[in-house]
């Protein structure tokens, strides 16, 4: 994918200058097609130039890199300089996510669109706090409403999620391990469930003629 060092031929200086200037002001990854439109150049050409530029930055050992994520291109600091950059970026972009938030993020990412209740069912506990946190961080968003009673909100992941994960699109998410392919383990019932049930079903032993005092209770 990355072009070899040879930078000259396909990188028109004017195109490079325009691309670099625009990349400096984008606030989210910008699609090659958008750049092509603004620059009135074929998308192919823009893409080729972006790839050449990406390779050039790497070859030159620059402090910034050009990445293609979330369906677009954007400038990032080179991780090699992270130690210095941290001093100037007061707040980490999303801090550290709690385990609850990560679980919830995974469920939303792989099952989207999904309702809050469905997330809670998988987690076994309420997911409100975690979803709220992910909403606030811009990693998930409301994507619609389910056509069912109460019309619960459906959630999905955002472009920022893809960007943070370094993914071009959701198709690049690592496949989930298939847990259902394994057979269920045995649950040895030494006593036998049927036997247990039968005892429950058996008529009450003795004392069946409890006094009618029961009425007083309620």
């Amino acid at each position, binding site marked *: 994918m990355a072009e070899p060092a040879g930078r000259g031929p396909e990188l028109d200086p004017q195109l490079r200058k325009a691309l670099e200037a625009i990349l*400096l*002001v*984008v606030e989210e990854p910008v699609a090659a097609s958008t750049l092509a439109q603004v620059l009135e150049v074929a998308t192919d050409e823009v893409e080729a130039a972006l790839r050449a530029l990406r390779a050039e930055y790497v070859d030159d050992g620059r402090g910034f890199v050009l990445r293609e994520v979330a369906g677009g291109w954007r*400038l*990032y600091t080179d991780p*090699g300089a992270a130690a210095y*950059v941290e001093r100037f*970026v007061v707040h980490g*972009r*999303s801090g550290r*996510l*709690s*385990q*609850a938030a*990560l*679980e919830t*993020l*995974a*469920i939303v990412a792989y099952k989207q669109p999904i309702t809050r209740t469905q997330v809670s*069912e*998988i*987690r*076994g*506990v*309420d997911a409100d706090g*975690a979803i*709220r*946190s992910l909403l606030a961080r811009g990693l998930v968003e409301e994507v619609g409403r389910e056509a069912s009673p109460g019309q619960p909100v459906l959630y999905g992941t955002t472009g920022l999620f893809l*960007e*943070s*994960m*370094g993914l071009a699109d959701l198709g690049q998410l*690592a496949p*989930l*391990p298939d*847990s*259902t392919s*394994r057979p*269920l*383990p045995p*649950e040895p*019932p*030494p*006593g*036998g*469930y*049927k*036997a247990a*049930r*039968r005892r429950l*079903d*058996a008529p*009450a032993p*003795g*004392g069946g003629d*409890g006094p009618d*005092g*029961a009425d007083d*209770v*309620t």
Partner: protein
Amino acid sequence: MASSYHVAVGSFEGPFDLLLQLIARHKLDIYEVALAQITDDYLTVVAEMGQLNLEVATDFLVVAATLLELKAARLLPDEDEPELDELTLEARDLLYARLLDYRTFKQAGQALGDRLRALAGYVPRAVPLEPHLARLRPPVKLPVTPAGLAEVAARVLAAGPEPGVDLSHLQPVWMTVEEAAVVVVEGLVRAGGRATFDQLTAGCRHRVELVACFLALLELYRLAQVDVEQRENFDTLTVTTAEGADPTRGDWAQAAFAALQSSTDADRGRSRVTAGG
């Protein structure tokens, strides 16, 4: 006593996470474990949650009920009928499927977290536009009506931040299983030794309390303090004091309480041994 327990309350994310941790602690493979094996440990942790005044969330209790049922089935003597009870098996399969599902997403979440950390070194340029460019930006279109903005504000203001540890289910406890046992025992005494489950739990105002009472009932049944009668599945449960007990005297209630107490103590003793070994 709780300190000897390695699974600290608050260090797991929910009933399935707790199950996974218990399975791991016993060095059992998730595909080999008989869930009933970890029933006691699970109940001990849930009881601790109650003592710490954490809400014993409904889902913890639902899982507890399934585990208890599995365990009860294992403890009962084998009779000539080897078939498994369909409902119990179904409950087991459902619980197990949910556990595996949860495990899948827990692992996927960890993978996402690893990836986030690995990529944290890429900081995007996110710098305000130079003033002469900012002026060119088209005016913002607000995507909401005033009423919509109010809704957003209400939702955000009411929510508050996610707690550091997941205690999102932290609420005042409604009723521990121990307390529920008292409700059941005393209700039964007042009723003269026989009452329906509905009558015994008429004072319960929340589903969690009902579940707690049901667990207490199962425990009393296990301890042979009560008998339970049900004509058919989903029919009314009728509870009676165990055969031979005279419910009109205080002895039966005291005996029931004593049995509950020693059972709890025994559970804790077992947990200590398990945790130590």
